[in-house]
């Protein structure tokens, strides 16, 4: 594949360029910043796509926003002439291929043309700069051979990708010495599973020994039961003996005792009966002595008290009370009447004596009334007379006051003169006035004007409206106005006296008229007042003269004196006093009567009191008399009852005493009977016999009881007491033995239960099986993973081996060629380029010295690298016929070596296209027949 032409639409700084390349060698020259690298990138990126944004490579999108992209015109041995066009589109750019036959293609076809090569592979072989050359020392055989192999084999990429993917996968599945990969983890898990299983298994192994132990325990338990039975038996017999032994001893003792006793007959229930009799006897004796004591103590009896008189008094109680209340009532009445009498006496103002002497008969009363009437009338007349006199006096006084007041407003002397003058002047003034009036009529001109105007207007309106009456009236008015106007013009002058009068009195006519009136009035009133005064004086005088006498009054006063009443008292009062006197006398009578009654009652009560005092045997007061009587009465009754009771008791005691004495003798008789029956002489003897017989009975009972007990205990081995330990010790021993066995049994039971539970649990425990299954599952997982890993491992191993094979076949020829070029380039200074056993490059100098590539000088190192690259390129001529793009890689070469280089390339360029970018002017001159393209030139000249 050779690039014939670059057509740049827009790429970096280049725009609308067309650059034609030589089919063998093109030197592209440009100073720094001229855009060489841009051109180089244009070629690479057009072939392999624009870098995407996340790649770390530069995009050359035009900054000024022009069209992005361009074409490469190539010629390929397999595909002929093809135009590869890449423009802006998707991230890597949109590709269109134009084939010679007119067909088009895109990415897939481009990929074919590029022989599945990617950018990295391309750059690693066909495109290099000085920087890449310097990296050679780090390249291992492995990488080199990869590069080599990559060059020749299609499908390599896929395989390589697969390999790296598998390697990655495998790393997650298994690592020889890892922890995290799945298999490694799983193995650890399996390990722990296994341990768990071991634990389970060892637990299961407990089963058999446990079962054996359970059986053993069962056997031992049976033995224990047997042993226990034996001990129990022995112990029981000892116990029986221990129980029986004291019983037998006792039985024997009782028999002995019974035999020693000699008792004849004993009355049935003798002791109890005897006791009872004795009890009764002592009780009776006690009662007798008590009764005797009581009767001896009784005092002599008093005689009874009398109550009959008192009872009679009590029967008359109400009489007494009536007496008392009557007396109280009378006394009360007396006091009331005395009070009334006293009140009236003080009203009358007389002492009792006088009052009683006054005559209060009805005739007297009538006389008094007549006197009173006469005196009243007389007094009435006198009063009327006095009132009239007082009136007249008041009138007189008023009249004189009025006169005085009137006189104060008497008109002055000037007024009286003025009035007189006025009476003379008045006619004169009237004349003057008339004259004046005529003159003053001229002064009505303006009025006339109006009258004339109105008249005229009225005529006009009347005529116009044909209202002739109006017109006529108006005409009249007009004429009148006119006439008056003419009249008014005449003026007359008045006489001088007239003018004088007028000046003095004109306008005061009313004033003077009023003054005259006033004076006249005054004089009239004065006369009236003086008359009035005189009349009043006369009347008073007449009234004062007519004084009257009072004869009736003195007669009345006389009568009163006779009566004893103060004569000055009013007539009404006198009547009342008269009535009061009458009442006083009546009250006196009542008082006397009441006094007599009271005396009688008091006497009666005293008698009563005396009777009572005698009856009660002590002096008594009137107040609370009957309470005292009643107390006395009940006291007496009580003491009488007591006496009665004491008497009865005394009789009773006497009777009882008799009874008890006879009872005592009977009891003594019975006692004697009992004694006789028991053949006892004394009571002590009797009781002793009783004790003995009871004891005998007791002994019989105990004997029977002991026999029954002995029977219950059963057979008792005789002679036990003789052998060995004491029975108690023996029992202790047995008990201890049993306790031991019991303890053992408990322990065994507990153990058995424990073991049984464990074995049962082991039997029913499914966990072990679960674990086992899980373990198997894990193993399966492991197997699967192992298989996965094995497959991947097999593939990668196979890939590697295949690669190695290829390398073995291919590498030597490449190295051989490289060695040849290297020799040439160094001018035979180095004889050989080899790979050392570690897989690194080595060179052999002409003198046989070996150097690792890193040890070489910079230029020599670069020559070695160039040799390898060129050798690779040559070896790939058929499979990957790409142009070689170099970016000034030879700057370190001296002239001689550069010449060697040029010679070599010249040799190779026949078959390979070389595109050489340089900024060194010398370089472009060094190539004899290269087509040199100056970047600066194209910038200037070539424009589409």
């Amino acid at each position: 594949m050779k690039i014939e032409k670059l057509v740049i639409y827009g790429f970096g700084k280049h725009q609308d360029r067309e650059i034609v390349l030589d089919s063998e060698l093109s030197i592209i020259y440009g100073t720094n910043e001229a855009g060489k690298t841009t051109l180089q990138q244009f070629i690479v990126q057009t072939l392999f796509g624009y870098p995407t944004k996340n790649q770390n490579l530069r995009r050359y999108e035009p900054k000024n926003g022009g069209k992005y992209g361009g074409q490469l015109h190539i010629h390929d041995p397999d595909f002929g002439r093809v135009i590869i066009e890449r423009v802006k589109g998707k991230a890597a750019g949109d590709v269109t291929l134009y084939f010679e036959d007119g067909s088009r293609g895109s990415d897939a076809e481009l990929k074919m043309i590029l022989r599945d090569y990617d950018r990295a592979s391309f750059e690693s072989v066909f495109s290099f700069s000085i920087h890449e050359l310097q990296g050679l020392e780090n390249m291992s055989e492995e990488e080199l051979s990869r590069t080599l192999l990559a060059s020749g084999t299609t499908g390599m990429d896929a395989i390589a990708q697969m390999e790296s993917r598998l390697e990655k996968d495998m790393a997650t599945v298994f690592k020889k010495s890892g922890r995290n990969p799945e298999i490694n983890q799983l193995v650890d898990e399996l390990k722990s599973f296994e341990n768990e299983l071991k634990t389970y298994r060892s637990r299961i192994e407990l089963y058999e020994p446990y079962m054996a132990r359970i059986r053993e325990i069962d056997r031992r338990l049976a033995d224990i039961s047997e042993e226990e039975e034996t001990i129990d038996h022995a112990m029981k017999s000892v116990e029986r003996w221990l129980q029986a032994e004291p019983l037998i001893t006792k039985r024997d003792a009782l028999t002995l005792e019974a035999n020693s006793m000699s008792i004849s007959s004993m009355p049935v229930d003798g002791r109890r009966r005897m006791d009872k009799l004795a009890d009764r006897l002592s009780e009776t004796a006690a009662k007798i002595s008590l009764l005797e004591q009581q009767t001896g103590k009784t005092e002599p009896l008093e005689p009874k008290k009398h109550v009959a008189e008192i009872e009679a008094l009590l029967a008359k109680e109400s009489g007494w009370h009536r007496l008392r209340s009557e007396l109280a009532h009378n006394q009360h009445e007396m006091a009331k009447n005395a009070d009334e009498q006293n009140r009236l006496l003080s009203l009358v103002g007389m002492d009792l004596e006088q009052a009683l002497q006054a005559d209060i008969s009805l005739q007297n009363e009538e006389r008094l009334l007549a006197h009173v009437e006469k005196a009243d009338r007389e007094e009435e007349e006198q009063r009327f007379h006095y009132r009239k006199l007082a009136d007249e006096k008041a009138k007189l006084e008023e009249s004189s006051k009025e006169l005085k007041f009137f006189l104060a407003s008497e008109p002055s002397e000037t007024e009286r003169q003025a009035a007189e003058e006025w009476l003379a002047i008045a006619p004169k003034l009237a004349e003057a006035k008339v004259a004046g009036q005529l003159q003053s009529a001229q002064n009505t001109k303006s009025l006339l004007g109006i009258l004339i105007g109105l008249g005229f207007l009225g005529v006009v309106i009347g005529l116009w409206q044909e209202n002739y009456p109006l017109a006529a009236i108006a005409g009249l008015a007009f004429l009148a106005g006119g006439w008056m106007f003419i009249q008014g013009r005449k003026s007359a002058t008045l006489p001088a006296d007239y003018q004088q009068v007028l000046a003095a009195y004109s306008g005061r006519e009313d004033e003077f008229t009023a003054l005259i009136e006033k004076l006249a009035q005054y004089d009239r009133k004065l006369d009236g007042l003086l008359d009035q005064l005189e009349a009043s004086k006369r009347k008073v005088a007449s009234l004062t003269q007519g004084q009257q006498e009072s004869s009736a009054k003195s007669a009345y006063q006389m009568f009163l004196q006779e009566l004893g009443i103060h004569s000055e008292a009013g007539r009404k009062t006198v009547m009342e006093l008269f009535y009061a006197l009458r009442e006083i006398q009546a009250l006196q009578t009542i008082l006397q009567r009441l006094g007599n009654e009271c005396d009688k009652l008091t006497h009666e009560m005293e008698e009563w009191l005396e009777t009572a005092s005698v009856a009660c045997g002590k002096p008594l007061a009137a107040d609370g008399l009957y309470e005292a009587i009643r107390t006395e009465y009940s006291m007496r009754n009580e003491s009488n009852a007591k006496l009665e009771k004491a008497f009865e008791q005394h009789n009773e005691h006497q009777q009882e005493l008799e009874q008890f004495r006879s009872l005592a003798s009977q009891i003594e008789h019975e006692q004697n009977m009992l004694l006789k029956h028991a053949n006892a002489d004394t009571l002590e003897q009797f009781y002793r016999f009783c004790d003995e017989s009871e004891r005998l009975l007791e002994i019989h009972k105990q004997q029977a009881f002991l026999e029954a007990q002995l029977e219950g205990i059963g057979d008792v081995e005789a002679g036990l007491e003789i052998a060995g330990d004491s029975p108690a010790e023996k029992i202790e021993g047995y008990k201890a033995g049993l306790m031991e066995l019991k303890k053992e049994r408990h322990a065994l039971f507990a153990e058995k239960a424990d073991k049984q539970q464990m074995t049962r649990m082991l039997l029913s425990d499914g966990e072990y099986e679960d674990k086992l299954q899980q373990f198997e599952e894990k193993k399966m997982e492991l197997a699967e993973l192992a298989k996965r890993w094995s497959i991947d491992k097999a593939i990668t191993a196979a890939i590697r081996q295949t690669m190695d094979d290829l390398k073995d076949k291919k590498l030597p020829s490449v190295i051989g060629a490289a060695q040849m070029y290297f020799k040439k380039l160094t001018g035979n200074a180095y004889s050989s380029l080899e790979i050392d056993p570690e897989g690194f490059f080595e060179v052999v100098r002409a003198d046989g010295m070996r150097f690792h590539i890193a040890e070489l000088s910079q230029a020599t190192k670069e020559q070695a690298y160039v040799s390898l690259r060129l050798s690779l390129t040559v070896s790939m001529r058929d499979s990957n016929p790409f142009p070689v793009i170099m970016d000034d890689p030879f700057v370190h070469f001296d002239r001689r070596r550069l010449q060697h280089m040029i010679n070599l390339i010249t040799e190779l360029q026949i078959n390979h296209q070389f595109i050489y970018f340089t900024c060194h002017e010398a370089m472009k001159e060094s190539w004899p027949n290269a087509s040199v393209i100056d970047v600066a030139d194209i910038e200037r000249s070539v424009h589409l």
Partner: protein
Amino acid sequence: MKGIRFIHAADLHLGSPFTGLKGLQREQWQKLKDSTLEAFDRLITYALEQQPDFVLIAGDIYDGEDRSLRAQQRFQQGMEQLDKAKIPVILCHGNHDHLSGNWTRFELPQNVYSFGATVSQISLDVRGMEVAIAGFSYGERHIKESMIKAYPEASGSEKFYIGMLHGSLEGEKAHAVYAPFTKHQLLEKNYDYWALGHIHLRQQLHEEPAIVYSGNIQGRHRGESGPKGFYEVELSKTSTQLKFVQTSVLQFDDIKVDCKDVIHMNELLDACTKSAREFIERYGPGAVKMHFVNLDAEARELVLDISDEELKEAVREAVEEMDEFFLVQEIAIEKGVHTAELSPLAEEIIAMMDSWEMREWKDVLKDLYRHPKGSRYLEPLDATAAEEIQAAAAEKIRRGISNGG
């Protein structure tokens, strides 16, 4: 002449776990875990119903190390049931329950006769007929030497001679060598029946006299596929009738899923459930490897488009709906006629693996198989495993490359 009727069972492996099952739900596991015990119960139930003259158990009643007490108890209870039914049981211990193991043993009832570590012969009276049974139990884990020579030859034709032997045919490569014997050696003894144990695959090595492996009563992993059970044998001097009685509760197997015309996922899942249903109807619960067959280009695209794990998950979920337990352990996709074109390099790589001998395989995988801790839990790498890996690797390369890598 009258004959005898007995049951020949072997390799009960009671209570031993399932292997190769992964990702079971807890309830699924609960259903599964008792399946060996259930299978054993079926055996006992059958014996109680059918009243055979006796029962032979040719070794490996349980796995020595993994035995659970429950399993042993169950066995003991089974034996007691037979005892009550007066059915004698003759058993020998195999390599998994050999006599020297220091594990718990249950006392077995009187009807059970257990052979000792050396070959011996016992005589049974079966309805007046004498049956001589010879056998031995494993005294230890490994019996490498042949025990057959010690078996007494049959003498006289009155009795029935039966040999019980837990071991493998000489030269059998797939199994480790245990008490090896040859068919010829057995036939030489002139026995009427050879009741063999140890090999879990049911098989008859010889017709008359019958030399029979009854196989185990319940498969425990994919390797033990198909129906499992025991033989009921009717033996007369003239003929031997074998009747296989299935006991397996769950069956491991391979089933095919016809993917013809499958385009969409739900069609594929329907096809899977259909196959599963057919299987369940025939065999009951199962754990299977599904083989997708008859895939056309679209079906292939469908299944290749999703990862194995996803596919398995989807199919599992689809068949989980079944009433019976049904587990899809693995899915295999039939190779297409048109495999994607591979680059010469990829072909070269596959060829490279092809060329590897066992030695090289071991070398390649040594990192894992030499791992001090991990290798213990792995099955040893053998030719079969290597082949499997190779096939899977090749498939992976093909798919990896053709999927555009």
